[in-house]
C-alpha cells in the first residue's frame, strides 16, 4: 500500500513546528502581539526616542544650558526676548540661557522624576498590596482602610500637601510626593489580583500538593498577579510626569531657577506668554508627547496581556 504523500508532508511540517516551538511564555506571546499593533509601535517609538534623548542630551545640547550667554543678554528686555539667532536655534529664554539646550536637557529631569516616582510607588504599593492579599484577615483590613484614606484625597491635592511639607523643595520632594500618591493605587491593584489568585484552581491544586505557603505566594500567586501592575506602572509613568510637572509649575519642586525642568520652565515662562509664547509652548508640547507615548504603550500592553483578546 502506498502512503498518501501530502499527508506525510503535513506530518513532517507538524513535527517541525512542534520541535521549533520550545517554551514561549505568556510574556513572549504578548510581545509578539504588541509588535503587530501600530498603537504599540507609536508608543514604543516615542518612549525610546525620549529615553535616548534623556540619556544623551548633555552631548546633544549645542550650548551649556546652565549659564547665561552675553550674546543673548545683550538684546534681552522685559518686553522682548531674542528669537532664533546663529548658534542659538530657539533663541533665549527669559534669563538669557540657550532655550533649545535647556529644552533638550529638561528631558533628563522629567525621566528621572517619572521613573523614580513610579518605581517607589510600585515598590511600596506592592509590599502593602502583597501583604494584604497574601495574609488576609485583620492585616488586610487595616492596610486597605489606610489606602482608602489616601485614595479619598484627590491625588494632586495630596501631592501638593506632601510637597508643601518640605521647607526647601528639591527634585526629591516632587518624587516623594508623586510616589505617595501612587502607592494606594498599586496596593489596591495587587491585592485584588492576589485575592483572585488565592481562590484560583491552580493555587488550590498547589495547596493539595502540600506546597509551602511562602512558595505559593511567591511562585504561584505573585507572578500571576503582575500583569495589571505592569500595565498600570506604564500608564502611571505618564501621569507621574504630568503630576511632577504640575508640582514644579506651582513652584513646589526644585527652587534653583537655573535647573532645566519642563514643568519649571513652563511655570517661569507664564509671565512672558505675550512676549515669547514658545517659552511655554515647547515644554508643554514635550510633556504632552512623552505622556502620550507612555500612555499608548501602556494601553497596548494592557490589550496584549488581556486574556480576552488572545487569538
Amino acid at each position, binding site marked *: 500500500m502506498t502512503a498518501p504523500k501530502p499527508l506525510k508532508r503535513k506530518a513532517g511540517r507538524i513535527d517541525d513546528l512542534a520541535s521549533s516551538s*520550545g517554551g514561549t511564555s505568556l510574556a513572549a506571546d504578548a510581545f509578539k502581539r504588541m509588535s503587530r499593533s501600530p498603537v504599540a509601535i507609536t508608543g514604543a517609538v516615542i518612549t525610546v526616542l525620549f529615553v535616548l534623548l534623556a540619556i544623551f542630551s548633555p552631548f546633544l545640547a549645542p550650548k551649556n544650558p546652565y549659564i547665561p550667554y552675553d550674546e543673548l543678554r545683550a538684546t534681552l528686555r522685559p518686553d522682548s526676548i531674542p528669537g532664533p539667532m546663529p548658534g542659538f536655534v530657539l533663541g533665549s529664554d527669559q534669563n538669557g540661557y540657550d532655550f533649545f539646550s535647556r529644552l533638550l536637557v529638561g528631558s533628563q529631569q522629567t525621566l528621572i522624576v517619572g521613573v523614580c516616582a513610579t518605581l517607589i510607588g510600585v515598590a511600596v504599593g506592592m509590599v502593602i498590596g502583597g501583604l494584604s492579599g497574601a495574609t488576609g484577615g485583620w492585616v488586610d483590613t487595616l492596610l486597605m482602610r489606610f489606602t482608602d484614606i489616601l485614595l479619598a484625597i484627590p491625588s494632586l491635592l495630596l501631592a501638593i500637601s506632601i510637597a508643601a511639607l518640605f521647607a526647601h523643595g528639591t527634585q526629591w520632594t516632587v518624587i516623594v510626593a508623586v510616589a505617595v500618591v501612587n502607592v494606594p493605587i498599586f496596593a489596591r491593584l495587587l491585592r485584588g489580583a492576589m485575592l483572585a489568585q488565592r481562590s484560583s*484552581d491552580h493555587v488550590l491544586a498547589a495547596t493539595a500538593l*502540600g506546597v509551602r505557603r511562602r512558595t505559593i505566594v511567591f511562585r504561584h500567586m505573585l507572578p*500571576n498577579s503582575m500583569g495589571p501592575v505592569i500595565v498600570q506602572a506604564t500608564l502611571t509613568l505618564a501621569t507621574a510626569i504630568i503630576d511632577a510637572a504640575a508640582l514644579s509649575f506651582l513652584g513646589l519642586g526644585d527652587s534653583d531657577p537655573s535647573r532645566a525642568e519642563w514643568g519649571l520652565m513652563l511655570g517661569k515662562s507664564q509671565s512672558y506668554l505675550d512676549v515669547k509664547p514658545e517659552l511655554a509652548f515647547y515644554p508643554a508640547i514635550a510633556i504632552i508627547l512623552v505622556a502620550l507615548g507612555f500612555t499608548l504603550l501602556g494601553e497596548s500592553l494592557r490589550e496584549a496581556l488581556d486574556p480576552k483578546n488572545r487569538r
Partner: protein
Amino acid sequence: MALLEVRDLSVVFRRKGTTPFTAVDGVSFDVEPGQTVGLVGESGSGKSVTALAIMGLLPKRGAEVRGSVRFEGADLLTLSDKQFRDRRGRDLGMVFQDPLSSLNPVIPIGLQITEVLERHRGMARRQARAEAADLLNRVGIPDPSRRLSEYPHQLSGGMRQRTLIAIALACRPRLLIADEPTTALDVTIQAQILALLSELVRDTGTALIMITHDLGVVAGLCDEVNVMYGGRVVERASRHALFSASRHPYTHGLLASIPRLDAPRGEKLVPIKGSVADNIPWDQACAFAPRCPNALGRCREVSPKLEPDNGGMLRCHNPVGPLTAAAERR
C-alpha cells in the same frame, strides 16, 4: 486495618445571614490499600466536598467539618495546618477536574513537578528534573525532557491531565483522589486517561478514590462504589453488584439514563425527574422521595437508615427488587 476510614463525616457551610447548608451529612466509608473506590452522584450530591474535606482543603472560616478521617490510624482532621501540609502531596494526592486551570499558567510544567519532588522527597534541582522527565515519560508524554520547559497553554488537554497525574503521583502517595478527572476531556482522551490511571494505580499499589458522575468510568475502574445523594451515601455495592442488581431507585435511575449497546433500537433513555433542588431534608424523610418513582408514604415521614443489604449497604424503604430491574430492561 483500612488505609482510609471515613466515619460520620459532615460538612456544614455557615455564612452570616443565610441558613446553614449541610453539604455532606454523615458519610462513612473505607478504602483498603490498593483499592479503587468510587463516589458517584450528580452535581450537588456532596462528592467533591467529601474529597476536599478529606484533603483538608475546605476554608477554615465558613466550613464546619465533623466526624473523623483516619489515614493509617491517625485522624487527619485533628492535624495542624503545618502537619497537614507535610502530608498533602506526600501521602495524599489529588487530581482535579479542569487540567488547564489547575496548572500555574506562568511557570513551565517542569518546575511544577520538581517543586513537589524538592518539597517532599528532598531532591536536589538536577535530580528532581531527571525524575520529572521520568514521570512524564511514565504518564505517556512523548519527548519529556523538552516538555519540561513548556508552559501549560502549549500542551493539549490530554497532556495537561497527564501532567497533573504525574504531579499528583510524583511522591508516590498511598491515596490518590481523582475529582472527575475526565470531565473536561473529550471521549477518546477520557478513555486514555482512565486506562493510564488504572495502570498506574495497579503498578504503584496506590489506593484511589474516584469521584465521578459517569457510571461508565465506574464500570471500568472501581472495585467498590458509593452512590451519594443529597450528602449521604444511599447505596454501596461492588461494581458487579451495582450493575447487575442495583437496589436503590436513584442508582437504578442513573443506570436507566445511560444508553446501552444491547438495548433495542429506538428505545428512549429514561431520565430521573426533577433536580437536586427538589430535595427535602434527610432528618425526617428520604431526600430523594420527591423524585422517586417507588416512593411510599413512609418515605416522606421516616428517614431511612443505611443498612446491610445483599453484601452491600442500602438506604431505602422500598428498594427496587433485582428481578424488577431485570424485567424493566426487557
